[in-house]
């Protein structure tokens, strides 16, 4: 059994609850034990690095210091938390930055998308699969921070990443090609400038629908929240219906591996994916 320290992050305890549930569910199915960090706190997100760089290093450092109390690697599903953690690791390791916590830059930080879409896990998933997602057409949407900046993420093909596509194909679905894999969804502009936000997400959703995909597959809580929960508002602006479900890759894994809680995760979506999945015979 593989064991990780686990940092869900604030979103996964709130607006991205189904991401947390599906990561945990899939991990159990894959014989991975997750130990949530004790008393973890906010990574600072966009606001800290926008206003104060030292605070933007200290907030992740506190969590990383907690993670270093054990010798387990750290698994992080949220792209923003992951990026902040890697940025802090870089500052401490490369620039010898001093922080207020006993963090030495030792703990290995893994992004859940990289780990769960990696070859070793895909091999296990293939063996445990009970219901291949035959007939499902998907476009993979990576967003920004899961791939950029490559100095921190280590992703070599950051303009055209394929690791989530590989997982989707291994699950038996079809991964369609499109040009908007790493376009920006607007992130926190959803709260501050809805007008600009709708233009960015409207373009991504329109292009996703044009490919003929049944769903968008996302691996960042911000991306999923923005494309799914605001889709009806975006449709009003565009003046036409899109109605494309936005699923987490972990939810597709749960579906293909027959995890009994998959239906519960999918119920939390604003754009209900269940009718589409039922029509394709992928859910009862």
């Amino acid at each position, binding site marked *: 059994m593989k064991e990780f320290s686990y940092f869900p992050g604030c979103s996964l305890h709130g607006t991205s609850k189904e991401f947390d549930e599906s990561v945990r569910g899939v991990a159990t199915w894959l014989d991975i034990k997750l130990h949530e960090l004790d008393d973890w706190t906010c990574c600072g997100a966009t606001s800290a690095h926008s206003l*104060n760089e030292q605070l933007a290093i200290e907030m992740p450092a506190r969590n990383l210091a907690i993670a270093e109390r054990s010798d387990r690697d750290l698994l992080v599903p949220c792209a923003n938390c992951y990026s902040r953690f890697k940025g802090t690791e870089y500052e401490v390791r490369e620039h010898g930055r001093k922080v207020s916590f006993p963090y030495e830059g030792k703990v290995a930080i893994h992004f859940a998308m990289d780990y769960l879409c990696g070859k070793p896990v895909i091999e296990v998933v293939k063996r445990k699969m009970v219901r291949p997602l035959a007939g499902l057409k998907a476009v993979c949407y990576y967003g*920004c921070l899961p791939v*950029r900046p490559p100095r921190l993420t280590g992703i070599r093909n950051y303009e055209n990443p394929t690791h989530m596509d590989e997982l989707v194909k291994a699950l038996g679905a079809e991964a369609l090609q499109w040009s908007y894999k790493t376009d*920006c969804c607007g992130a926190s502009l959803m709260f501050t400038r809805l007008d600009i936000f709708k233009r960015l997400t409207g373009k991504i959703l329109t292009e996703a629908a044009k490919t003929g995909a049944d769903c968008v597959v996302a691996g960042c809580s911000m991306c999923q929240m923005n494309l799914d*929960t605001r889709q009806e*508002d975006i449709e009003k602006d565009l003046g036409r219906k899109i109605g494309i479900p936005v699923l987490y890759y972990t939810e597709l894994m749960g579906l293909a591996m027959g995890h009994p809680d998959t239906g519960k995760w999918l119920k939390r979506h*604003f754009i209900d994916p269940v009718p589409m999945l039922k029509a394709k015979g992928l859910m009862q």
Partner: protein
Amino acid sequence: MDARGQAPNNNTSLLSEIYQESGEKIQNCYQCQKCSAGCPLNFTMDILPNQLFRHIQYGHRDKVLSSNTIWLCASCHTCSTRCPNQIDIAKVMDNLRAIAHRTGAKSGDKNISLFHRFFLSLTKYTGRTWEPGFALYELMSGGLGGFMGWGLKAFLRGRMGIFPGFKGGAEFRNLFKEVGKGGAR
């Protein structure tokens, strides 16, 4: 003006200030405009990223710090990965926001700068982001985002916790005291 030189202007210190705080060399920019061409927010910025860099070279401090560009930047890092001179443009934007914040420059987008200040003030006490609290930001900013209705829908789907976590204690809150409104590096 030669892109490597510095304009004879009393305000040129912004260029060196950025270099000292972020280590980024704006003087290396030769105006290829790749940053602006690939920027997803370019349609709404009052000064494009490459233009902003020219203004920094010229020392137009107020113009740069009060532009909406620095606040609209969503930190997507597309520009940073494409710059042929390896300028980490997203990092420079962070630095410019921090300078604008601590020097009290006129904000080029009041909603966004307010959101970041609000987010940190709230999180300081809750330890973890308390999403229902964003409703207060909505009221402060004039309530145009439709957050309330959206939040209710999220709540009904179990995607919105009601109570804040209150984690981290004094150790976490002290972080905000020690760094205060201080600089970028």
